[in-house]
C-alpha cells in the first residue's frame, strides 16, 4: 500500500513539526514558570491530529479535549494569541479567561473543554447545526481512550448514529488515564464498543500519518455525503506523561528521588499494627509493581512510535531540513515575541499577593 491519494507528505510533515515545536515551546515555558497550572501536551499525537485535520477546512468544526493545542495549530490558529492565552495573558485568544483547557476559537470554529467526555456530545450538536446550516460540513470530536468510559460520550455515539449525523469521533489511545492503566478499568474492546453503536469504524497506528490520513479521509467523506458518523481509533504515546510534572514520569526519570519521597510513608503504613492482611499488602505491592512496569515499558518501547520521526522517513532529507528550518524560525519568532510580552512572572503576576 503506497501513500494515499491526495496525501501531501511534505505538508503533513510541516504541520507535525509545527505542532511539535509549539508544544515543546509551551512545555519549556511551563518549566520556566510561565504557564500557570496544568499543561497537557499533545506531543506524540501529531500524526493523529494532522491526519485528521488535513481533511478539514472552512466551517468544519472541532470539539477538543484537554490536549487541544496541536489540533488548533493544525487548523491555523494564531500562534501568538494561542500561546499568550495558555500563559494567562489578557492579550490571549480568550483574554486570559480560558487557559489551555478551554481554548475557544469561533473563527475556526473550535472549542475545547476540560470535562472528560464532553467533546463527543458537543460535536454532535455542532453536527446538527452543520447539517442544517452548512451542508457537507463535518464536526470532529477528539478524545482519549479513557474518556470512552464516560457515559455522555457513549450516549453521543448513540445519538450520532440515531440521527445519522456528520460526525467523526477520534479516539487517541495512549493507554493511560492520568496514573491509571486504562485496560485495568475498561471492559471489552473499545473498537468493538464503538462498532456496536453502529458507527463506521477504522483502526490505525497513530504514528503512521499516512494511515491516519487514509482512514480519516474515508470516514470524513462518508460523513460529508450523509452516510453517517464514524469512529477512528488511533494508538499513540504520551512521552511527557499525563501533564507536565506527571509523578509517574518523575518516577521513571528519577526513581531514586521519587522512591525516597514515596517509600517511607508507604512502608510505615504497610507496617501499621492494624490494617489489611499480609495477602492484601502483597496484592497492593503487586498492583503497584505491575503498573510501574507497564509505565516503564510504555515509556521505552512505545516511545519509538514517534509520528514525527515516522513522517520524516516519508521525505527526502533536503525537504525535511527545509521544512524544519522554516517552521523553527516561525515558531521561535512567535515564542520570542510572546515571552517578551509576558516578561518575567515568578509570582504569576499577582502583584498584591496576600501576605
Amino acid at each position: 500500500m503506497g501513500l494515499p491519494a491526495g496525501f501531501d507528505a511534505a505538508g503533513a510533515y510541516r504541520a507535525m513539526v509545527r505542532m511539535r515545536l509549539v508544544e515543546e515551546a509551551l512545555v519549556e515555558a511551563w518549566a520556566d514558570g510561565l504557564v500557570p497550572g496544568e499543561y497537557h501536551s499533545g506531543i506524540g499525537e501529531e500524526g493523529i491530529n494532522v491526519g485528521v485535520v488535513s481533511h478539514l477546512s472552512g466551517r468544519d468544526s472541532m470539539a477538543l479535549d484537554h490536549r487541544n493545542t496541536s489540533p488548533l495549530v493544525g487548523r491555523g490558529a494564531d500562534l501568538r494569541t494561542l500561546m499568550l492565552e495558555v500563559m494567562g495573558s489578557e492579550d490571549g485568544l480568550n483574554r486570559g479567561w480560558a487557559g489551555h483547557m478551554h481554548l475557544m476559537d469561533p473563527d475556526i470554529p473550535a472549542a475545547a473543554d476540560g470535562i472528560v467526555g464532553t467533546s463527543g456530545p458537543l460535536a454532535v450538536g455542532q453536527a446538527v447545526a452543520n447539517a442544517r446550516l452548512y451542508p457537507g460540513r463535518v464536526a470532529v470530536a477528539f478524545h482519549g481512550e479513557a474518556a470512552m468510559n464516560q457515559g455522555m460520550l457513549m450516549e453521543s455515539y448513540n445519538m450520532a448514529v440515531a440521527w445519522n449525523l456528520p460526525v467523526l469521533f477520534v479516539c487517541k489511545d495512549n493507554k493511560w488515564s492520568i496514573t491509571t492503566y486504562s485496560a485495568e478499568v475498561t471492559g471489552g474492546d473499545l473498537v468493538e464498543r464503538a462498532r456496536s453503536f453502529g458507527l463506521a469504524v477504522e483502526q490505525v497506528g497513530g504514528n503512521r500519518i499516512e494511515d491516519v490520513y487514509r482512514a480519516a479521509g474515508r470516514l470524513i467523506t462518508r460523513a460529508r455525503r450523509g452516510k453517517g458518523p464514524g469512529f477512528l481509533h488511533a494508538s499513540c504515546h504520551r512521552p511527557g506523561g499525563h501533564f507536565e510534572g506527571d509523578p509517574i514520569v518523575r518516577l521513571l526519570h528519577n526513581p531514586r528521588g521519587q522512591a525516597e519521597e514515596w517509600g517511607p510513608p508507604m512502608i510505615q503504613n504497610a507496617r501499621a499494627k492494624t490494617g489489611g492482611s499480609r495477602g492484601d499488602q502483597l496484592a497492593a505491592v503487586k498492583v503497584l509493581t505491575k503498573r510501574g512496569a507497564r509505565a516503564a515499558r510504555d515509556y521505552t518501547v512505545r516511545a519509538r512510535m514517534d509520528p514525527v520521526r515516522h513522517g520524516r522517513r516519508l521525505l527526502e532529507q533536503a525537504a525535511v531540513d527545509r521544512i524544519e528550518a522554516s517552521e523553527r524560525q516561525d515558531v521561535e519568532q512567535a515564542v520570542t515575541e510572546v515571552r517578551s510580552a509576558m516578561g518575567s512572572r515568578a509570582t504569576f503576576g499577582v502583584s498584591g499577593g496576600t501576605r
Partner: protein
Amino acid sequence: MTVMRYGQAIDFALGEAMARNDNVVTWGEDVRLIHRDLLARFGPERVRDTSISESAFLYAGIGAAMAGLRPVVEIMLIDFLPVAWSGIANAASKFRDFSGGRWEVPLVVRAGCGGWYTDGGQHEQTLWGQLSAYPNINVVCPSTPADAAGLMLTAVESDEVVVFLEHQLLSEQWIDFLAGNSRTTVSFDHLVPPDGVEGEVPLPLEPVPLGQAVIRRDGSDVTLVSLGVGAHRCMEAAQVLTASGIEASVLDLRSVYPLDKDAVLEEARKTGRVVVVDEDYVRGGLTGEIAALLLEAGVTTRYARVAVEGTIPFAPHLEYAALPNAERIVTAAKRLE
C-alpha cells in the same frame, strides 16, 4: 387577545419563534408526541425525539447553539436535569466567559417542574435556586399563560442561556400525563389555580423581559414574594389574611435570575414585612438570596420563609403539608405581625 391554556401558550410562543427564525429547533424525550402541534407545523427535522441521554443531548444543545442554531432542549422534568448537570454547571454557564466574550450560547433549556399532584420526591422538584447559582444562567417560571408565552418568546430570542420551567400543575399536558388526570375518579380542582391554567394571551405576542417582577395584588401590611404556583398560593393566602385585617401585597418574581431587586426592595420598604414563598428547597435558593439583598441594602424588615424543608413525600396529605401551601403562608405572615 385570545384565551389559551398554559402549556398551549408556551408551545404557541415557541411556534411563533420558530416561524420567525429558521434556526430555532427543539429536541428532547417524546417531544414529537407531546408537542405534536409543532411537529405538524415545522416537521421532524426541527422537532426531534431523543434517546434517554440527558447529558449528551443537553451538551449537544450547547454545541449546536455555538454552531449557529437556537436550540430549545427539553429535559422533560427538571428532576432529570441533575443527570446532565455538568452541561449547566460547567458548560452553558461558562463557555461565553471562557471564550473571553467572543462566543454566545443562545440556548433554552425547557423542563417541567413543581408538585401538588402526588408524583413523589423525584418528579416534583423545582431546583430553580440551585440553577440560578451558576454564572450566566437565567431561570424563569411563569404563573400564567400570558407570562408563559411572553417569557418563552424572550427566552428563545435571547442570546443567553435561559432555563424555562413550566409548572406541572399548571400545564394541561403534564397534569394529564403525570397525575393521571385522564381518569374521571380524581380531581385536581381544589389544587389547580384557575388563573394559572387558562387565561388571556395578547396577540401579537408580547415578550416579557427577564428579571421583571409583577405585583399581583397591592397591600400595605406584608409582602408575599413568590413565583409559579407559589404566586397563586400567595393570592389565596392574601385572601385569607384579609379576614384578619391584614392586607398583603403579592409579588410574582417570574424570574429567579435575574432577580428584580428593585421591586423586592421597594415592596420591603413599603410593608416592612417580607414572606418569601418558595417551592424550592429552603437552603441554597431564592429565600436566602432575597434575605441577602435585603440585608445588603440595609432595609430593615421582618422576614420569614415558607419553602420545602426536605424530601417531598409521596402521600398526598404529606406532600401537601410539605409544600408551601396557603395555610403555611398565612401562619408565617401572621407571625410577622
